[in-house]
């Protein structure tokens, strides 16, 4: 008995969705109609493929996020022990954040944060 609890909640979530789906299948009214299974596009038939190359800006932000998220991953342990360590921790994180901040400013100036 311990971290199995997480698995229990996982299963509970699955049961909830699967059960409700099952229930819905059980009681819903069904009708067949080919138009119903078309993708919705404001009443028009879809033209061209949907899965196309997407705007690169999204990836750019994803990459930026990755970097800053990892930064948070380092900040969390630091934050936990900050009270105990004190001055050294403060200075070190200052260096860390200054470099990161420079990175952010750099991305800013390079136009990586601009959504075009």
């Amino acid at each position: 008995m311990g971290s199995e609890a997480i698995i229990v909640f996982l299963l509970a979530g699955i049961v909830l969705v699967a059960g409700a789906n099952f229930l819905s299948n059980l009681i819903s009214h069904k009708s067949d109609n080919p138009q119903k299974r078309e993708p919705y596009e404001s009443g028009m038939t879809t033209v061209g493929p949907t899965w196309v190359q997407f705007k690169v800006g999204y990836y750019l932000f994803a990459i930026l996020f990755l970097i800053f998220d990892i930064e948070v991953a380092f900040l969390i342990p630091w934050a936990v022990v900050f009270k105990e360590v004190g001055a050294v921790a403060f200075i070190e994180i200052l260096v860390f954040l200054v470099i990161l901040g420079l990175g952010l400013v750099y991305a800013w100036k390079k136009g990586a944060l601009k959504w075009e």
Partner: protein
Amino acid sequence: MILSINIVNNSILNMLMIALIYLGIFSVAGLFLVLLERKVAAWFQLRIGPNRVGPWGLLQTMADALKLVSKELTGTVKADKFLYNLAPYFVIISALMALAVLPFTQDFQAFDINIGLFFLIAISSIGVIGILLGGWASNNKFALIGAMRSGVQTISYELSVSLSLVTMVLLTGTLQLSEIVEVQKNGWLIVQGHIPAVIAFMIYMIAGTAETNRAPFDMVEAESELGAGFHTEYSGMKFAYFFLAEFINMFIIAAIAATVFFGGWLSPFGITDSIPWLGVFWFLAKTFVLVFLMMWFRWTFPRLRVDQLLTLEWKYLLPLNLLNLVLMAFMVWLGFTIQL
């Protein structure tokens, strides 16, 4: 021992019971929040809102739920069936698991792990995978655009959420939620940390609202341009999951804020310390005030454009947040905190 609730002695049975209780909380809270939203919306617009089904329309969402259950589960032919069906699981499970670590009171917390806050941050970002999957697998242009927007928005604001929480962790020195609440016996963190804590709270609320894709940050499902966004192709119960999860997420965001900034189940000035179970009341009260705040946002602010949204996060909130973090660290280092 992670599970802190003990209902029956048999461990397996105990777990099942807990799971069931949480499922109950989950659905009831979801349904109630939906109703609340509609009522709040109505009040803001000087309407009455749902008032036919049950007293004051209390059963309105129950009726809606029944309607949704009785609808046929359809999907488009072009969809990637497996991923399409998988998406709801992600959003539901992540919401449910996040719920499980929240301390409703001292004793009512499904599991109290020592990295609680970290777990919350981690688990809350899984939901976006469900949204991305759903939007992509639908093979619908609106859905795809919605999903992509959701992705970029969620991950962006995730940073601010995490950073503002980290700012508060500086005060607590622990990630365990129960201990975070414990620390606040000397005063809620928003008081202890005063200026930076207030800033952190404001950032957190903005970012939290955005992370749940709620207005004014709801480009994801901007009706006027994207139909229904990422869940355009979802109907019936499958739509309900996303709908439900969104409201639960709102609750979770508010609950975290209540726990971290406002002392969780602690009563103001310890007025109900002698009656522990009243903690639930205080917790829910604080949470719902914050939920109301989020709903207030929704009906007050106009929707942002994507570029404005990203500008807000990356050019304002994030740098501000980093500075705030340093400020807080500086304060904690020099002991400028307020201890009641």
